[in-house]
């Protein structure tokens, strides 16, 4: 409906990660360029401060004449100049920071939006094979790493490089020879800092690994507190934890050694460089090659140019995390979405519900599948409003078969027609709007019960309608017993619903949705007898005037169906109504029926046995 996303990550996919990140900046390139330019202006203002200082010093030492020899006025002007430059510098530094944040936060925001939407539109097979934890990790940590790349690392590297070149140019304008000898050790420093931070990163990873080990030990101990206590193993646990704890200390120390070497070494290198420059410049000043003012300005510029260099290595090493994260996010973006609205046939109104399976087979196409069809050569026909029951054991293909109807998966071969039109031609969105599913263990969201019932209805629903649906689903009375009635939250922060209650909320949800095709996936197997009766009433209300598919394993749940399909290993082994199937002597249906009868008989026997006092022990 309302496609509000303006950004499509799929347009920013590139094997070259830097290029990819550049493409990701679409719409934000000018602000980012603006941030860089502001940064340059700000740095330039600060550089000019040193030139002002030079002028001031030269005036003081008489190397430069004050304006009309009016010293107080000159000093006042210089003072104003300092304040003015500082305001200028501050203003642009603020603009730069703000624009960089604007870019980074903006990119992060639309990246989050895109990923959220993209993930919910990926196929069932993708979700089936991807661990949730891994996805969550990527959409949180990796997005944050990308944000930091723009907000801290890229701009940080840019800042240091800009400062370097601006100040170097300034030094050149003071004195070329002086400028060159002031930067001789910079390449060495850069090399050292990259060398160090690469190693620091490695040692840090080792340290983090041990932190994970320690957390695992801790967590296992805390969650297994009963076991620890039951076996009185406190001593053993303490020793184990202390071992892991000590190892973390050792690795921490190892990591620190690297840090504590880097800083003094860089101090020595840069301090030496600085001192060498100072002495050289001082000699030049004494020899009259430069003025005292120039010397003063030189000292300021050199200090400002040199010290940031040692952070450059750290930033450069850190940018690699941004690049890695980009790659990890790209893997998600590359996945194909389900085309929800695509389809040759766009019907007006609802379906009638006539469904024809004609030699339909289906093979999963993900990595886990070995290529054998999970359902094969299925043919049957059902009229609008009929109830079709699917009977069979686990893995017989019942669920796979009904999953084809809302187009969760597409059949691999054969023809499946709904109201005479090939199912593949209907848009997925339409089919899902027309189909309602009540699962064995329905998923409810941690929202209020009201929101759960109206979830996905797609229109405004008033309280009466909600209550009506809840009544028909036999859950209204239960809801009223909760502290906040319909506004009670479900889940951790609210009430925990029993399996039967969840199911009836799901039935109410489906009733409101009013689908024309209904799928009941083993809806009564996990609840007790009393609740089963209530759910059955609710289900009967639900099934009225809808084409219904019932997945079940008990004969009594399928007896009344208009058509019963007995499935085994992906195939229909028997089809017909209860009486017909019962009449087939060697059929599976009759076998199941007999087993269930036998169970009843055995139970009877068992009880009689105890009645005559024969203990079975």
């Amino acid at each position, binding site marked *: 409906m309302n496609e509000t996303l303006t950004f499509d990550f799929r347009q920013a996919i590139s094997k070259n990660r830097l290029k990819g990140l550049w493409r990701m900046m679409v719409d934000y390139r000018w602000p980012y360029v603006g941030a860089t330019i502001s940064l340059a202006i700000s740095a330039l203002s600060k550089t000019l401060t040193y030139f002002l200082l030079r002028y001031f010093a030269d005036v003081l030492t008489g190397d430069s004449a004050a304006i009309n020899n009016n010293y*107080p006025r000159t000093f006042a002007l210089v003072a104003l100049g300092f304040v003015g430059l500082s305001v200028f510098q501050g203003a642009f530094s603020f603009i730069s920071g703000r624009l960089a944040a604007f870019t980074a936060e903006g990119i992060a925001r639309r990246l*989050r939006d895109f990923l959220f939407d993209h993930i919910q539109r990926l196929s069932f097979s993708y979700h089936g094979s991807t661990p949730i934890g891994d996805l969550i990790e990527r959409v949180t940590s990796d997005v944050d790493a990308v944000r930091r790349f723009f907000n801290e690392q890229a701009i940080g590297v840019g800042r240091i490089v800009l400062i370097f070149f601006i100040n170097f140019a300034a030094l050149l304008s003071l004195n070329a020879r002086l400028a060159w000898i002031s930067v001789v050790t910079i390449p060495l420093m850069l090399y050292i800092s990259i060398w160090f931070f690469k190693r620091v990163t490695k040692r840090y990873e080792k340290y983090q690994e041990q932190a994970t080990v320690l957390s695992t030990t801790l967590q296992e101990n*805390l969650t297994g507190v009963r076991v620890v206590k039951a076996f009185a193993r406190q001593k053993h646990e303490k020793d184990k934890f202390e071992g892991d704890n000590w190892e973390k200390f050792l690795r921490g120390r190892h990591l*620190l050694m690297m840090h504590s070497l880097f800083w003094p070494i860089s101090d020595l290198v840069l301090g030496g460089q600085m001192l060498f420059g100072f002495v050289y410049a001082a000699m030049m000043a004494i020899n009259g090659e430069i003025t005292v003012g120039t*010397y003063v300005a030189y000292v300021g510029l050199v200090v400002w140019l040199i010290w940031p260099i040692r952070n450059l290595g750290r930033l450069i090493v850190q940018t690699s995390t941004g690049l890695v994260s980009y790659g990890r996010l790209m893997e998600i973006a590359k996945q194909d979405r389900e085309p929800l609205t695509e389809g040759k046939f766009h019907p007006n109104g609802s379906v009638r519900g006539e469904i024809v399976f004609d030699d339909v087979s289906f093979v999963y196409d993900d990595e886990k599948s070995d290529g054998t069809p999970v359902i094969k050569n299925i043919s049957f026909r059902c009229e609008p409003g009929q109830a079709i029951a699917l009977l069979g054991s686990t893995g017989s293909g019942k669920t796979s078969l009904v999953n084809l109807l809302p187009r969760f998966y597409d059949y691999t071969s054969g023809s499946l027609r709904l109201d005479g039109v090939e199912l593949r031609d209907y848009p997925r969105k339409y089919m899902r709007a027309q189909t309602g599913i009540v699962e064995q263990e329905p998923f409810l969201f941690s929202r209020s019960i009201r929101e759960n019932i109206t979830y996905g209805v797609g229109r405004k629903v008033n309280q009466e309608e909600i209550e009506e649906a809840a009544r028909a689903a036999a859950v209204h009375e239960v809801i009223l017993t909760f502290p906040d009635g319909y506004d009670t939250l479900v889940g951790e922060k609210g009430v925990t619903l029993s399996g039967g209650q969840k199911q009836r909320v799901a039935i109410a949800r489906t009733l409101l949705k009013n689908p024309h095709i209904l799928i009941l996936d083993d809806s009564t197997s996990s609840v007790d007898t009393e609740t089963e009766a209530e759910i059955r009433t609710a289900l009967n209300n639900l099934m009225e005037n809808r084409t219904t598919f019932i997945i079940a394993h008990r004969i009594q749940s399928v007896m009344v169906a208009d058509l019963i399909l007995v499935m085994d290993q992906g195939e229909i082994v028997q089809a017909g109504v209860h009486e017909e199937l019962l009449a087939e002597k060697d059929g599976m249906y009759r076998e199941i029926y007999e087993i269930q009868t036998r169970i009843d008989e055995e139970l009877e026997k068992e009880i009689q046995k105890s009645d005559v006092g024969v*203990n079975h022990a």
Partner: protein
Amino acid sequence: MPEDNIELEEEEYSSQLTLPVLKRIIALVIPHKYWALGFFVAIAIVSVLDGVLTYINKNIIDQGIAVGDVDRLMELAAIFGGFIVVQSIMVFIFVYLAGVLGERIQFDLRKQMFDHLQSLSLAYYSQTSVGRLMSRVTSDSGRVADLMTWGLLDVTWAITNITTSVIFMTIINWRLALIVFAIIPVLVIVGIKFRQRILVEFRASRRANSKITGAYNENISGVRVVKALGREDENLSEFQLLTGDMYRASYKAAWLSALFLPIVQIIAAVALGSIVWYGGIQSQAGLLTIGGIHAFVSYLTFMLWPIQDIARVYAEMQHSIASAERIFKLVDTQPDVHNLPGAIDAETLLGEIEFDHVDFYYEERKPVLTDFSLKVKPGEMIALVGPTGGGKSTIVNLLCRFYEPKNGRVLINGRDYTEYTLESIHERVGIVLQTPHLFSGTIRENIRYGRLGATDESIEEAANMAGAHDFITSLAKGYEENVGEGGNLLSTGQKQLISLARAVLSKPELFIMDEATSSVDTLTEALIQQGMKNLMSGRTSFIVAHRLSTIRRADRILVIEDGKIAETGTHAELLRQRGHYYRLYTQQFRQELEQQYGVADGGKEKKDAPEPMAAD
């Protein structure tokens, strides 16, 4: 995500430093006082040398360049170089000492907390989430260590830095120094005000972030329902509200931070301007040298560093103090269940066990057991059945003395069991729980947990008795196979068998099984029966179960409902009564046979807590 929430909740209150807390924090450093002293001295030297180096620079200008004295210049340069070397060594010392001290304090705190946690009773664990305890041991300890190292370091550095600068400035020209002193309070106030505003936005952004993670989590876990109900567009609009909140808060926090620095610098520039103007005039009068003015500018810049940082350091310190208080609270918690003074060794549990008018509740006014009495003869096998929440597990918990009765007594060998030591009871109890808990490591290590000195043969013997040997040997590495974190590489049924073997190995006198084989398939269950029969002979055992084969074998079956014994007797007696047990039994019987015949959907193992008996 939940851990994130916990931190967020706890961050909301910030603590004031009180004397007792301060004393305890300092006490953490006492054992390592020489390290602390070392880094203190080192950082102070580094900071003072910064001031000295600037002063040497001044002299290079005034005594070297201005008068053209090359010898003096070289002399000063040599001193300068020497100090750089000294300073580098000091930097090495303080980074290393502060860092190692930090790691060491963390180590100490973690050890102290972990050891204390081992003594706390289950009641504490049921009230405190694992996530909370984890964050106590992992992140709070880190924050306290940071406070005592980098926090202290920041403060020391700031103080010496400002003091040194002030002293040198006063030496050079006290009038100009007064100008600088005037702006210090202004800067500090501005810093704190800014920090507060930034913190507000920062917290809002953390809150939004945690909501975003929650939304991702829910939408991905429930993606099937989302698709089936076609709710993608609405979900996206709802999500965009969250990312919008996050955007606004973090953007604001970011640009406020970007504003802070320039403001501090502009205030400083005003001071700088005054120095230039006033200093210029003074130098005309010969009161100030060019090197002096230059040094002034440098000292001013110096002082700005710690002042810019002061707000951050202050916020972090508050944070750390809150962490320290939480840690102390944990360490101060007394266990509810502990050895009484003069407790004696239980010697044997193979005697009469009696619940004597026991009352128990987890939460006040929600009684679980009321006036519960039961006598068990040594060697008897008791089965507990009944609905969830009826009190079966509570009976087991009391029996193991994980909890103690609120009223009434539990007697073993005629003595109140609180007169025995906890260890002597636990050593003689073998317990197998429905949600089996394994530790990372091999299968062998996990079984050996039952008796640490056990030989490999006795481990395999125990596994055999528990019906685990066959599946273990079918694994690629057999007993050396890794079970994964929390045993997650194994199925629930396999984990149950291993925890059963572990209990078997410990050769308990009192054997307790709480739904211990609920996820084991019927075939294996039958296999275990014989082993269990051997195991339970000569031992008292309590079995919470729903499998009929297990229940039927019991000497006595108790149907527990609403904290009371609703029915009691043997299997046959209870069936004849046509009461609660009869109803539970018929339902369970039907279900088991359906599964056995392969009629039912067998895939129920995915559910962690199958509770067919729960229904009534």
